[in-house]
């Protein structure tokens, strides 16, 4: 049992982790930057430590400062949330070396999955299906063009050390490939400090579906359901739902087996997510990557399974048994998550600024994981996620109706948000039919 926990993150996810820790009787420590002093997560922790100035490099990404904060407050364990230091194997190792508990997988597992090319190769070797692609990073743009001749277009150009859709682009011919390669490489260098680029066959009309896994303390891995994350803008998720529409039971079971095999192949412990591309017509899937941390959209899995994933993360990290019957997980109903971003609802451009009004929808089946409240300011230093509006109901149709009501009730003033986009989405026949894919938003805005 962990008695004290430092949460090395900010906003909604810090608050969400702190909430579960508090209900478990764990003493909590928040860390924050100058820009976030007024946010709810800072005052809700038992103790808060100022890390430094607003830029992430000088605060949330400064491993030494985070470790020092843990030492000074006597925190036993560190939960990294998602983003920032969550998938940094070196940081995980430093936490362990400091004699602290790391709430996440072993550094070796983070490292194995962190390099996307290596991860693809390992998954293929473990018998998990992967999309056709380059087996090693490309030396230069000409190597990319040569590899493309074998693979065939369309292709996805990706950063090997990447994530979050940054630097990713589709190329449909050589000219597009050359342009995409240059852009991807410069972004990869800037955001991930590694210029390694690889190619993967792009699957048209694919759905982005992921499987939540939990590696237990005793070495077993369980699959806790899938989430469809196909509603995306700029290759970044905007809404997710579970169960995935268009996933037949046979495909679902194959994906669960593949996800468990993938996690077992790297000796995975704690919560993780296997991201896949699904061809709904062929009822087939390929492995994309593994996120070796708690996922943004984990709440919808919690809503349909009744499992508190953060509580289970803390139990696994402490070497304890899970609190639920691993053979008796039966998801109930349908759940959807809408990521409320500080951005305009048409072009999705950032909209930082002061929040003058914030009124959340309430009611049965509604869960809001929010990072902000009225009076807070949204700064331009961090991602635009304000809150996750999650809704659960008995059926998909009811969940969507319920979500539309909740969107109408959610009042955020002072900045622009994408709430009006969600009203549009929940009313869109393509989305309502369940037969959508990752091009849905482009279709909505193009037509």
């Amino acid at each position, binding site marked *: 049992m962990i008695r004290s926990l430092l949460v090395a993150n900010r906003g909604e996810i810090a608050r969400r982790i702190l909430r579960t820790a508090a209900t478990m009787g764990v003493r909590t420590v928040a860390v924050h930057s100058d820009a976030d002093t007024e946010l709810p997560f800072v005052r809700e922790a038992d103790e808060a430590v100022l890390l430094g100035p607003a830029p992430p490099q000088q605060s949330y990404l400064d491993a030494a400062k985070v470790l020092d904060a843990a030492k000074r407050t006597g925190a036993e364990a560190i939960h990294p949330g998602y983003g920032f230091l969550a998938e940094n194997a070196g940081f995980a190792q430093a936490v362990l070396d400091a004699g602290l508990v790391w709430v996440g997988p072993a550094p070796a597992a983070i490292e194995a999955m962190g390099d996307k090319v290596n991860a693809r190769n390992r998954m293929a070797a473990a018998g998990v299906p992967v999309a056709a692609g380059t087996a090693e990073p490309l030396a230069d743009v000409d190597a990319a063009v040569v590899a493309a001749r074998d693979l065939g277009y369309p292709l996805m150009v990706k950063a090997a050390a990447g994530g979050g859709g940054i630097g990713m682009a589709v190329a449909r011919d050589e000219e597009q490939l050359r342009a995409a390669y240059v852009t991807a490489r410069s972004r990869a260098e800037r955001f991930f400090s590694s210029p390694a680029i690889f190619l993967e066959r792009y699957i048209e009309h694919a759905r982005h579906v992921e499987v939540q896994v939990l590696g237990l303390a005793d070495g077993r891995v369980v699959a806790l359901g899938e989430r469809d994350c196909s509603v995306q803008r*700029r290759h970044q998720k905007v809404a997710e739902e579970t169960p995935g529409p268009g996933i037949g039971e046979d495909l679902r079971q194959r994906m669960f087996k593949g996800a468990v095999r993938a996690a077992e192949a790297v000796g995975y412990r704690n919560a993780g997510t296997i991201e896949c591309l699904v061809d709904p017509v062929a009822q087939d899937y390929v492995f994309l990557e593994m996120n070796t941390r708690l996922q943004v959209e984990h709440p919808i899995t919690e809503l349909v399974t009744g499992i508190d994933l953060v509580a289970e993360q803390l139990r696994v990290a402490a070497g304890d048994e899970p609190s639920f019957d691993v053979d008796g997980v039966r998801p109930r109903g349908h759940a959807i998550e809408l990521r409320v971003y500080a951005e305009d609802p048409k072009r999705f451009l950032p909209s930082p*600024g002061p929040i003058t009004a914030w009124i959340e929808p309430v009611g049965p089946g509604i869960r809001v994981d929010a990072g902000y409240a009225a009076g807070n300011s949204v700064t*331009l230093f*961090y991602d*635009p996620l304000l809150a996750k509006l999650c809704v659960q109901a008995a059926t998909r149709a009811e969940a969507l109706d319920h979500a539309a009501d909740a969107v109408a009730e959610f009042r955020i003033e002072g900045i622009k948000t994408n709430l009006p986009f969600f009203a549009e989405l929940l009313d869109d026949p393509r989305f309502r039919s369940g037969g959508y894919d990752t091009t849905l938003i482009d279709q909505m805005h193009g037509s």
Partner: protein
Amino acid sequence: MVEIRAEIAANVWQVQVREGAVVAVGDSLVILESMKMEIPVIAEQASTVERVEVAEGQSVQPGDLLLILGVPR
């Protein structure tokens, strides 16, 4: 003369043109960065860069002047 102004609050990440440069429709003039997103400011007409009013690393507010383009070609 055409004034190019910032649409959003952001940091100036890259200034991609110099004064006197000839630009075509679709050329990227400046890349702003806000909330982990890069937002290129694109030339909407062929022209010449008369003045660059911002420097890399500077923060801008919506409506702030970024650069001035000459008469459309």
